[in-house]
């Protein structure tokens, strides 16, 4: 490849691909991410797209973006601000202008900057002047024209020609990073294998974009990001939904159980069902149910019949499942309920992220309804917590809610592939036939879990159901029995605490401020706190994965700090939960309810304000 006049070496770069929802930006971003990961960068991605499949063209509401943060250092967030923006139209500029770092590079399809499309995006005449982006490194590329030119000798329809525009943009970005095209070319070949003309067109345009970058080289600097110092091993890219699905699958295998998933499609959780529906080769039985309620009810039936049962959903679906979830509480059957949270209430923001189902998970059911709640922190973390949710469910004979969210579900990161032999064992509390009468609600003295008697086993015939029962499994409305059963179901869930690992503190165990979070804020909180520590602040972080029960050492950790702040993407659900569970502490809150993850900057700014700028010593 040609000599490069100006190369910027960086530890980390944030690239955002942005265009109409039909422009193929999600694919473009994914291909770039995978190429970077293969090269050895650490990465973190953040797809951000509208709920409509094809939102009105050229409008800001219809902009679909895919942000990827690649680094020579370890990357924990998709990045606050963009270094390189690929904008397929003026609306993409408007949607992203405030997220551009000073001195960013903007590559844009100048063919799409017509008067009409500029006005459609809400500008008068000049997007760059109006959004004060003149000083950015602007690269105008007439992509539509260049694509038509590159493919003029091929016999393909004009629509297909224009659909390759994203590959041209991708080729240009690859040139900027001196990346290899092989991964993308292999992908194109596999995807369009049956349509060789389309495959050829895409490859051709990809290369055309790359060479165009070379041709206009004089105009622009290129980047070099060295590989990250990553631990040895075999890696793959994984997103949260895939990791969740594989985590429960790993637990089923470890427990010697076959998996069943009954689910109903709902954004952003559908990927879990889709992933498990593929796994018929591993004996996974999946059912796309007629509704959310049937999703959980078929899973409860499958659990009763002896399968590792899972149902996946998002907030509105969890609401529909709540009555049946209580049936699982009452029948004390193992069940994993995966709630991939999104912006609410009601239909809310289906494709955006939020942590606002916490109270629903903890309390959104009738009666006294104890359910363990755990939350994953990163996309690949979803594997461990999917496994953990299933392990708790089976060993403690209880439904478990696993909270992830849109940010984790769609975000991806490189993942060092574990070996299942390193996963902890799962002991299934099967009932066995003895000389004594089988009592359906007789409990293990340690865990208080009842035994799992699988239909088909001779001599263990029994009945379960939603009505209050005695130890024997007979229906009972006796006042004392009800109180006893309510308390023992609660105690059963509380006893899980024995297996909950201690809350980890990032940084010193004492200090001026502890930044508390839960679940998916992990990356932003830990990055912000690490930076604050480097800047000399006495700040530590503790991000919870176990919500109910809370880790044993929670109060001990809190006691080490002058101030506590709880950061979460809701109005303060976890902060209020902590106020109830650990009343002697004062909790500051930092909340964001914009359908977006935190930025590192806003967490840092809030902490500095809370500390009134006070540094160590």
């Amino acid at each position, binding site marked *: 490849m040609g000599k490069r006049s100006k190369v910027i070496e960086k530890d980390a770069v944030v690239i955002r691909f942005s265009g109409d929802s039909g422009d193929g930006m999600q694919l473009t971003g994914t291909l770039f991410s995978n190429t970077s990961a293969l090269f050895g960068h650490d990465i973190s991605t953040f797809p951000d797209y509208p709920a409509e499949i094809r939102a009105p063209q050229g409008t800001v509401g219809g902009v679909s973006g895919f942000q990827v943060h690649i680094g020579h250092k370890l990357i924990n967030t998709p990045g606050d601000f963009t270094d390189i923006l690929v904008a397929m139209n003026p609306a993409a500029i408007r949607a992203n202008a405030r997220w551009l770092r000073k001195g960013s590079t903007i590559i844009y399809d100048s063919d799409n900057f017509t008067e009409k499309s500029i006005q459609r995006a809400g500008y008068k005449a000049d997007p760059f002047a109006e959004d004060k982006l003149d000083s950015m490194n602007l690269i105008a590329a007439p992509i539509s024209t260049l694509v038509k030119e590159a493919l003029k000798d091929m016999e393909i329809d004009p629509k297909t020609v224009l659909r390759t525009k994203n590959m041209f943009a991708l080729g240009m970005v690859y040139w900027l990073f001196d990346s290899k095209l092989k991964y993308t070319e292999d992908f194109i070949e596999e995807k369009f294998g049956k349509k060789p003309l389309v495959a050829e067109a895409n490859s051709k345009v990809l290369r055309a974009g790359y060479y165009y970058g070379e041709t206009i080289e004089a105009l622009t600097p290129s980047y070099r990001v060295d590989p990250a110092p990553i631990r*040895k091993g075999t890696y793959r890219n994984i997103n949260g939904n895939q990791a969740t699905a594989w985590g429960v699958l790993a637990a089923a295998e470890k427990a010697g159980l076959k998996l069943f998933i009954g689910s109903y499609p709902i954004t952003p959780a559908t990927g879990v069902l889709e992933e498990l529906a593929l796994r018929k080769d591993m004996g996974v039985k999946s059912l796309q149910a007629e509704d959310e309620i049937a999703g959980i009810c078929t899973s409860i039936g499958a659990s009763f019949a002896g399968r590792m049962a899972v149902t996946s959903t998002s907030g509105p679906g969890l609401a529909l499942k709540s009555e049946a979830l209580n049936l699982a509480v009452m029948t004390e059957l193992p069940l994993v309920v995966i709630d991939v949270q999104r912006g609410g209430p009601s239909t809310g923001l289906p494709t955006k992220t939020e942590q606002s189902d916490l109270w629903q998970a903890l309390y959104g059911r009738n009666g006294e309804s104890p359910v363990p709640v755990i939350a994953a922190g990163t996309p690949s973390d979803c594997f461990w917590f999917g496994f953990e949710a299933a392990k708790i469910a089976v060993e403690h004979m209880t439904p478990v809610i696993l909270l992830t969210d849109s940010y984790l579900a769609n975000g991806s990161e490189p993942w060092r592939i574990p070996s*299942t032999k390193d996963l902890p064992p799962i002991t299934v509390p099967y009932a066995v036939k003895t000389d004594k009468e089988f009592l359906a609600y007789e409990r293990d003295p340690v865990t208080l879990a009842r035994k799992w008697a699988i239909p088909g086993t001779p001599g263990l015939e029994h009945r379960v*159901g939603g009505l209050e029962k005695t130890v024997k499994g007979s229906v009972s409305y006796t006042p004392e029995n009800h109180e006893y059963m309510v308390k023992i179901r609660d105690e059963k869930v509380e006893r899980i605490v024995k297996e909950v690992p201690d809350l980890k503190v990032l940084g010193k165990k004492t200090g001026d401020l502890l930044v508390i979070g839960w679940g998916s804020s992990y990356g932003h909180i830990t990055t912000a706190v690490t930076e604050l520590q480097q800047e000399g602040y006495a700040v530590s972080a503790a991000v919870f994965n176990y919500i109910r029960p809370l880790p044993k050492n929670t109060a001990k950790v809190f006691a080490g700090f002058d101030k506590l702040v709880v950061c979460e993407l809701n109005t303060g659900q976890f902060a209020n939960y902590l106020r109830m569970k650990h009343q002697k502490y004062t909790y500051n809150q930092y909340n964001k309810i914009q359908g977006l993850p935190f930025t590192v900057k806003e967490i840092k700014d809030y902490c500095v304000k809370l500390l009134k700028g006070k540094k160590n010593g």
Partner: protein
Amino acid sequence: MAETNINHYAAKDFKSDQEVRWCPGCGDHGILASLQKTLAELDIPKEKYVFVSGIGCSSRLPYYMNTYGFHGIHGRAAAIATGIKIANPDLMVWEMTGDGDALAIGGNHYIHAIRRNIDIKIILFNNEIYGLTKGQYSPTSKKGLTTKTSPYGTIEEPFKIGELTIGANGRFFARTVDYNLQLSNEVYKEAAKFHGTAVVEVIQNCVIFNDGTHDAFTSKENRDDNTITLRHGEKMIFGKNRDKGIILKDLKLRVVKIGENGITEKDILTHDAHEPNPGIHYRLAGMSLPEYPVALGVIRAISAQTYDAAMMEQHERVQARSKIRTVDELLRSGSTWEVK
């Protein structure tokens, strides 16, 4: 019907130790007794049965059956039963439900279970009323019925269960009457042997809140003239004197008298429960007074692949193609890279 019954069960082997709590005189007692008799006569080990139910009087039945049992929540029995059957197709799954449970709150699960043809036996107790909540109208209550929630009479058209079932692509539909133990036993056995969703509507009397609602065709004086028991391969003849029959004329079922207007037995329709075209079964299932007798017996029974069998078959197909069997293999499938 010769039964081998290698397990030598008697009806009492299926009685649980729970005290039966239905009202004295309730039709449910008869349903329980004939089901227990049916199970004793089937050649299936007791531990293979699972009785699943929703909510309502009908749904208490699993407690009284000494088998595996699951008393679910209102309307969801079909979904729970579906999960059980898919999880373990070796089990024989019976769903106990009522007109409110299956057709109001559970209507969605009901039609989708039937559409999928999952191999479960649905016994639908139809008393045209909500009993456990003490007397409100149901989706099968006759139009105009006065109840606590329809003090001036209902203004809703009721569902006809047979039409709804066949409309949802039901492959098996039968009807029996709670007190008719012999017919019930016969129909339950047919349902048990059928592969697929088998719906049996049981005409059931609620002595407290809707007593006598079915009398027009179930009472001793009316039943011979106002019902017809259909059996595959037999002529559709009924009546106290066995002199009435059903013919198809001008695309319509008609009741005729043998010996009148030149009608002979030869003109009477022969019941073909195995005819795949649902047209005639739909009409037979929909027959009601005063124009027609109410059809009892197995009205429709056509064989088709069950959902659970199709799933097993698909699994085998995929397994023949894919090499992935373990999680370790799965995690390393697709594109991976080494960091050295």
